[in-house]
C-alpha cells in the first residue's frame, strides 16, 4: 500500500553529485499529487527504497535540484503535506539560505525521507543524506550544467561509425551525433527536422548504436507501426524488433528483451500504460510527437508516465513557433526545462506572442537551443536530391472507419461473383473505399455542410498546405476525382483564407487551362492549384510549384511520376517535395506497401493500375481491403 500523501527523498548521484535529484513517491498518481502541491512533476524513474515491509522498487518522479529546490522552499505547509516533504522543504530553505539552518534537522527526519538503498540492505542515514544534499545543491548552483554545451558541441560533430546499412547524409550524421549525446547524458530532446529529412533513419542509428541491457520503446501512430518495423529491419537488421500491437501482444514485461526495439501505438500506450511503465526503458521515442501538443490530454499524460533513460520526441512541425505545443512536447522530452506551464506563459509566451519581446525570444532560444534540433530542407539543400518523395500517414476518423467497415462487409458478404460481373464489382468496391478514405462527403455525395473533422486525410492535407502557404511556397494537389477536387477547392479556400483555389479538370476549356497555368506560374493566382490527374497529368508546365501532393493514389507509379513531373522538370530551380497521402490500416496503406516493397515487380504486376486487383481471389482481396486494427482519430 503506498502512503496516501506525497513523500519526498533525495536521490544522490555518487559519481556526479550535481546530478543528484529529488524523488517524489507515494499516492496512486504521484505526478498529480506533486502538481497539486505546486511541485514540479519531474520524470518517472525506478528507485530502490527500504519500506516498512521490506525493500521495494518504487516508481518515483525524479526532479533535478535546480527545479526541485526553489519549489520545495515555496511549498505551502498544511495537513496535505507529509513529514518527509516538510523535511525536504526545511532542507531546501536551509540550502538556499544560511547553511547552518540545516543543523538540527536530521533528528526530525522519518525513514520515509531518507531510506534510499545505499548498498545491499543498508540505506542512507538521515545525516548523511542531508550532507550529500547540501553539497549537491551548492555544486549544482555554483557550476552550470555541462549538458547544454555538450549537446551544442555534439551537433557540430559528425557521427563517425554509423551502425546502419545506409549512407547517411552529412546533416544526418550531425543529427546522429547529437542524438547520441542526448542519450549519453540521459536527458531528452526534440528532433524536429522538416518532413522528409530522415528523422526515422537518424533515430534508428541512435538505437542501433546504444549498447544497453534495457529495451527501447518507440510510440507512433498506428498507421506507421508497420513502417517503423520495416525501416528498422532494413537499416539495422541486427536490432531485435518487438511489435507491441494487435491482440496477440505481450502482457508481461519479460517479452521486451534487452536491446530490443519495442514498437507500439499511441492508443496502446494508453491501454497498456501499466505494463509499459513497469519497464526501465533505455530510449523512449515518440514519433509524430505533435500528438501530445495538448499537455492536459490523456496521451500526453501517459507519455510522461513511462520511465526511460533518454527521451526523444520526433516531429516535423515548426514547434519553436507554437509555444503551447513546444511547451507540451518539451515537457515530455525534458520535463521542467521550460518551467511550469503558468510561469512559461508569463515569462515567454505572453511577451513573445503579444509583444514580440526580443529579450524573451532570445532567452527562450538560448534555453531550448541545445535540446531542439530542426533543420529545414532549404538549409540542407545541397545534401538533398532534386526530388524528395515522402509518404504522409493519415488516420481514419470514427465516421470513416464505420463507413469503411460497413462497405467492406457489405461487398464481401454478398459475394463478388465471377467473370465480368466480378471485375465491375471489385472496381466499384475499390472506388468506394478510396472515396471513404478521401472524405465521407465524397462517398455520400454530399454537397453542403462542414468538412473539417470528418476525414483524417483532409485535416492532414489542410495542415500541410497551411504550412506550405505560410512559408511562401506553391503546391500542386492531384486527385483522380472531380467531386473531391471540388470539395477541396471550397474547403481549402475557406480554411487557408485564400480568395479561391482554382481546379483544373477535364471540364475546363483549352483557353481556361492556359489562363490557369499562366496565372499559377506568374504568381498572380493563389499558391495552390488543384489538378485532376486525368486532365492535368501530362503536358502542363507548372514549375512554379515546389510541392506536389497526391491526395489519392493511382497505384501506377508511372502515372504518378508523370503528374509529379509537371513541377519537377526543366525550368524548375528548386527541389520538389512530393507528398503521397496514405491512410493507415486501409487498402491505401497495403497497396502503397506493396508498391514500395516490390517496386520493380510491382511495375510488372500492377501494369496499368487497378486491373490486377480484380484478378485476386476472395481471400486475397479480403486481405487487401479489410480494415486492420487501426488508430481511429476523434
Amino acid at each position, binding site marked *: 500500500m503506498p502512503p496516501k500523501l506525497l513523500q519526498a527523498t533525495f536521490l544522490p548521484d555518487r559519481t556526479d553529485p550535481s546530478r543528484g535529484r529529488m524523488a517524489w513517491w507515494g499516492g496512486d498518481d504521484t505526478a498529480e499529487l506533486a502538481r497539486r502541491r505546486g511541485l514540479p512533476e519531474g520524470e518517472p524513474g525506478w528507485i530502490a527504497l*527500504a519500506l516498512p515491509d521490506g525493500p521495494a522498487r518504487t516508481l518515483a518522479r525524479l526532479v533535478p535540484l535546480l527545479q526541485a*529546490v526553489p519549489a520545495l522552499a515555496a511549498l505551502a505547509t498544511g495537513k496535505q503535506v507529509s513529514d518527509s516533504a516538510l523535511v525536504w522543504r526545511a532542507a531546501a530553505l536551509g540550502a538556499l539560505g544560511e547553511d547552518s539552518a540545516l543543523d538540527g534537522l536530521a533528528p*526530525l527526519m*522519518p525513514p*520515509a525521507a531518507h531510506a534510499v538503498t545505499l548498498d545491499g540492505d543498508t540505506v542512507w542515514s538521515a545525516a548523511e543524506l542531508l550532507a550529500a544534499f547540501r553539497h549537491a545543491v551548492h555544486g549544482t548552483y555554483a557550476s*552550470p550544467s555541462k549538458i547544454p554545451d555538450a549537446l551544442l558541441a555534439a551537433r557540430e560533430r559528425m557521427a563517425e561509425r554509423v551502425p546502419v546499412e545506409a549512407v547517411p547524409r552529412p546533416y544526418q550524421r550531425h543529427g546522429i551525433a547529437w542524438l547520441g549525446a542526448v542519450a549519453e547524458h540521459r536527458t531528452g530532446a526534440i528532433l524536429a527536422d522538416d518532413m522528409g529529412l530522415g528523422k526515422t533513419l537518424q533515430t534508428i542509428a541512435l538505437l542501433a548504436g546504444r549498447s544497453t541491457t534495457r529495451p527501447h520503446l518507440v510510440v507512433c501512430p498506428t498507421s506507421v507501426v508497420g513502417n517503423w518495423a520495416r525501416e528498422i529491419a532494413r537499416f539495422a537488421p541486427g536490432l531485435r524488433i518487438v511489435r507491441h500491437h494487435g491482440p496477440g501482444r505481450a502482457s508481461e514485461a519479460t517479452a521486451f528483451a534487452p536491446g530490443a526495439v519495442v514498437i507500439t501505438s499511441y492508443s496502446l500506450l494508453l491501454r497498456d500504460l501499466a505494463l509499459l511503465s513497469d519497464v526501465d526503458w533505455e530510449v523512449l521515442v515518440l514519433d509524430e510527437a505533435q500528438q501530445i501538443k495538448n499537455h492536459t490530454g490523456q496521451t500526453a499524460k501517459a507519455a510522461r508516465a513511462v520511465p526511460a533513460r533518454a527521451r526523444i520526441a520526433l516531429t516535423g512541425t515548426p514547434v519553436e513557433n507554437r509555444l503551447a505545443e513546444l511547451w507540451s512536447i518539451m515537457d515530455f522530452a525534458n520535463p521542467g526545462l521550460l518551467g511550469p506551464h503558468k510561469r512559461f506563459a508569463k515569462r515567454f509566451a505572453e511577451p513573445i506572442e503579444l509583444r514580440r519581446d526580443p529579450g*524573451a525570444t532570445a532567452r527562450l532560444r538560448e534555453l531550448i537551443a541545445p535540446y531542439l534540433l530542426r533543420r529545414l530542407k532549404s538549409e540542407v539543400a545541397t545534401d538533398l536530391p532534386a526530388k524528395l518523395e515522402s509518404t504522409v500517414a493519415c488516420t481514419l476518423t470514427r465516421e470513416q472507419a464505420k463507413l469503411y467497415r460497413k462497405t467492406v462487409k457489405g461487398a464481401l458478404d454478398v459475394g463478388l461473383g465471377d467473370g465480368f460481373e466480378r471485375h465491375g464489382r471489385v472496381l466499384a468496391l475499390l472506388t468506394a473505399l478510396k472515396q471513404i478514405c478521401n472524405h465521407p462527403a465524397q462517398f455520400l455525395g454530399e454537397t453542403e455542410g462542414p468538412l473539417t473533422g470528418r476525414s483524417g486525410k483532409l485535416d492532414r492535407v489542410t495542415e500541410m498546405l497551411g504550412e506550405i502557404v505560410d512559408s511562401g511556397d506553391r503546391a500542386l494537389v492531384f486527385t483522380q476525382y472531380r467531386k473531391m477536387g471540388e470539395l477541396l477547392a471550397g474547403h481549402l479556400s475557406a480554411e487557408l483564407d485564400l480568395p479561391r483555389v482554382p481546379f483544373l479538370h477535364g471540364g475546363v476549356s483549352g483557353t481556361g487551362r492556359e489562363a490557369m497555368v499562366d496565372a499559377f506560374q506568374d504568381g498572380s493566382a493563389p499558391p495552390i492549384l488543384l489538378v485532376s490527374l486525368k486532365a492535368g497529368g501530362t503536358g502542363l508546365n507548372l514549375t512554379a510549384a515546389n510541392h506536389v501532393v497526391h491526395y489519392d493514389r493511382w497505384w501506377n507509379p508511372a502515372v504518378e511520376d508523370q503528374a509529379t513531373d509537371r513541377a519537377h522538370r526543366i525550368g524548375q530551380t528548386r527541389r520538389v517535395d512530393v507528398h503521397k497521402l496514405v491512410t493507415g490500416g486501409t487498402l491505401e496503406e497495403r497497396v502503397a506497401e506493396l508498391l514500395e516493397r516490390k517496386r520493380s515487380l510491382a511495375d510488372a504486376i500492377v501494369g496499368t493500375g487497378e486491373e490486377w486487383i480484380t484478378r485476386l481471389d476472395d481471400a486475397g482481396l479480403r486481405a487487401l481491403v479489410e480494415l486492420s486494427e487501426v488508430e481511429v482519430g476523434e
Partner: protein
Amino acid sequence: MSTQKTWWGKRWPRTLEALGLSYPDSRIVRARALIRSGAVDDLLVEPGSITAWIDQPGRAYGVTIRIPPLGEAQWTVAAGALAGRTRSLADLLDDRLPEDVDRVLATVGLSLFPRDGELSIECPCSARGLCVHVITVSHAFADRFDDDPFLLPFLRGGDRARLLSDVRAAMSSIAPPPPPAPVGVAAGSLSAKGFYAVEDARDALTAWAG
C-alpha cells in the same frame, strides 16, 4: 496607480522621489496617458543611460536619464555578496531580482537601484527639474523592466550572463568540502512505526524558516 506587477518594476518609478517627486502628482497620470497613446519612441537602455523621445503635438522631446555604471571591481564585490546565499542565484536563474538584493548589496556598500544623487536627468523642455517627460520615460522603462529584471544590471554596466557567471564563480570559491563517503544504516534498524513521521517533529518542521 502602478501598472507594474513585480516588486522591482514597482520600485523603479519611486527612484524619482530623490528628484522631488511626491504624491499625489497629476503628472504621473499624464505620463501613463502618454505611454498609452504611444508617445514614447525609441526607448533605448544602455549601460549608464536610458534615452527616449516623447512625441507631442508640434514637438518631440529627447529625454535622457543617467545612472553611473559599476566598475569591474565593484561587480566582483557585488557578485561575491550575492554568492553568500544560494537563493539569490536561484532567483536570478528564474529571471527574478532577489527581493533582498538591496539589503545584500548594501552590506558591501553597493546598490543596483540608484542611490541619492546618482540619478541625473536631461530634457529640453522648459520645466525646471523633474518634468512630465522624464516621468514618462521612467515609467516606460519600468514597464519593460518589469518583464526583464536584467535591464537594471545592464544599466549598471553588467548583463545577465556576466552576473550569473560572476556569482557562480564566487560560489565555487567558497564551496564546502565534500562530505565523507556514506556508511549507511541497516535497513532493518529503521523504525517501522515511525516510518512516515518522527514523533513530535511536526511542529518544528512546519515552523522551519531556513
